[in-house]
């Protein structure tokens, strides 16, 4: 049972980590709590299903179409919607909820509320220390590790990554050093939606137009638990909450529906002890 718990924690935690990384990056750099983040994930899942299953283009082609398309959708919605109200923190919350609802309703009208499921990219599985592990789960782990390492290298080694971190630290000073802050924010949004779309390629869950709300709660809990704006924190938070969720599923199979409640409880406990999350930046009062 313990190996099974470990495998499940790693795979669910991996998908959560991808989703939470985009959200955390958006908050850290642009101070935008993007409540439409998981809606992009659902849109990407529908895109993969539509191109891969309905039109029968095969997995590689559908990923090659969907991931860039969703990223462009994210860039467009940032450029024409979020960017315009960036100065009003309440307006940005509302506009992202409204955007998520727009996606949800369009999907609902176009594809009805039926459940859809993506087939695994690779079928079959193998047995590791007595537990059946599907190749899909191994693939998820591989993708997560590759993406997270790439993201870390991008942020710490490249010029663009340095610009993003500088903007997160202090947008005004970054602007004085010749960094184009609007362009950096746009690129950050692009990376965030790209990560959401990549997370959709690895998911094995069923999805429907309303499927953005429950992962949204989970991702918010993860990002808050790890500390808003901290990539390391959100990755660790993703695996902690995935462990909590998996333990509930395995130890209390009859209270399966309570897994979100236990994850939220874990978040409340951590925040009561550490108000800034595990690795969060403690907010300074606004300077005048």
């Amino acid at each position: 049972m313990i190996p099974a718990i470990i495998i499940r924690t790693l795979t669910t935690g991996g998908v959560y980590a991808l989703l939470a990384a985009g959200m955390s990056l958006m908050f850290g750099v642009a101070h935008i709590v993007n409540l439409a983040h998981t809606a992009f994930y659902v849109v990407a899942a529908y895109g993969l299903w539509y191109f891969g299953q309905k039109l029968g283009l095969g997995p590689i082609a559908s990923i090659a179409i969907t991931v860039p398309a969703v990223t462009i959708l994210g860039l467009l919605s940032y450029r024409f919607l979020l960017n315009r109200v960036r100065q009003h923190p309440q307006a940005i919350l509302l506009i992202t909820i409204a955007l998520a609802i727009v996606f949800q309703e369009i999907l609902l009208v176009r594809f009805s509320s039926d459940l859809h499921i993506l087939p695994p990219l690779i079928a079959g599985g193998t047995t590791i220390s007595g537990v059946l592990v599907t190749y899909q789960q191994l693939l998820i782990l591989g993708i997560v590790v590759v993406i997270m390492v790439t993201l870390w290298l991008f942020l710490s080694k490249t010029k663009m990554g340095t610009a993003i971190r500088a903007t997160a630290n202090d947008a005004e000073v970054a602007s004085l050093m010749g960094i184009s802050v609007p362009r950096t924010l746009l690129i950050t949004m692009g990376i965030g939606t790209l990560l959401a779309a990549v997370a959709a390629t690895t998911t094995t869950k069923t999805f429907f137009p309303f499927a953005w709300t429950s992962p949204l709660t989970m991702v918010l809990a993860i990002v808050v638990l790890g500390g808003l704006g901290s990539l390391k924190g959100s990755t660790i938070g993703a695996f902690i909450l995935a462990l909590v969720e998996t333990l509930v599923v395995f130890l209390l199979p009859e209270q399966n529906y309570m897994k979100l409640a236990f994850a939220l409880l874990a978040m409340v406990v951590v925040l009561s002890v550490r108000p800034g999350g595990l690795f969060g930046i403690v907010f300074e009062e606004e300077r005048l």
Partner: protein
Amino acid sequence: MLGRLLKSLRFGVLPIPGRLIGVIFFVFLFIFPLISTASHPILIITIASIYAIFAVSWDLLSGYTGQVNFGHALSFGTGAYSSALLYTYVGLPPAATILLGGVGAALVVVATCFPALRLRGPYLSLITLAFPLLLHQVVLAFPSVTGGYVGIRELPPLSDSPIVEYYICLVVMTVAVLIMWKLTDAGSKYVRTGLIFHAIREDEIAARATGINTIRYKVLAFAIGGFFGGIAGGLFGHLLKTVGPATLSMTLSFQVIMWVIFGGMVSIYGAVAGVFTLYPLVELLQGTAIGEYRTLIMAVIVILILLFMPSGIAVWIRDKIERECPRCKLSNGAWRTECRACSAPLR
């Protein structure tokens, strides 16, 4: 008494178009059953009144005090469930259960603010999101007491006649909104809370430095918000005669944020205007040919409003029809060229 009322009507309401519109709006609501007694519009306005209490209570907590709460459905759901449970197990009449439901909601909300008040800004918003979801799961975990997914049914109605129910909700809404308006009025001579709430939102450290126990006032804001949210929940339960887990849903928490920001935050009239515009709009679209797209239409309207008037529609309209005197800070109609009190030029 009547003379004073006429005097304040003449000098306090008539020269200020925003207040005039507000008064006309309330008078219209009170005489509406004389115009039409069709059950559908009456029910829509009754529910809108209940949601208006809920929205204003969110605005008091999140707008005025700045503690942006993503889980205000907690108070609505607690109020609804506690009034329903009080009826089912104790057998109290609706008037008592609704009031006690409000008190219960205030207690639960105050209990949640002990972990919440250690946090600030987005952390506070996101932790408050968790509480109604937690309670939602607790409700589902004890189906023998709470009815699980089905909820508690066959509650007594507020009254047998829809018109009387309409007036009950309208009067409770008017009284609740007036109380919350007074509590948040920064210029009030009698209660200090309005000024203190504004101070906490603008700069909490400065407020603390002037000797205000900000924690106490934040707890007070949570309690007031929870109480009126709970009253709204209790009324809603008795109006629909059933209380289900939907009263604790995230949708409701986001809905109230949508109404208030649409109308205009940090303004009581904005919250009321937001509810009375968006809610009937969505309900009226329901039966029509484009009913399938009603949520989409609402979301698109919200996006457009935010892009072109980010401070909210009611505040935007108010800024168009009123102008503040630069010298004496008195509101004037936009058609005036000089202030009505001190004759300072307005442009």
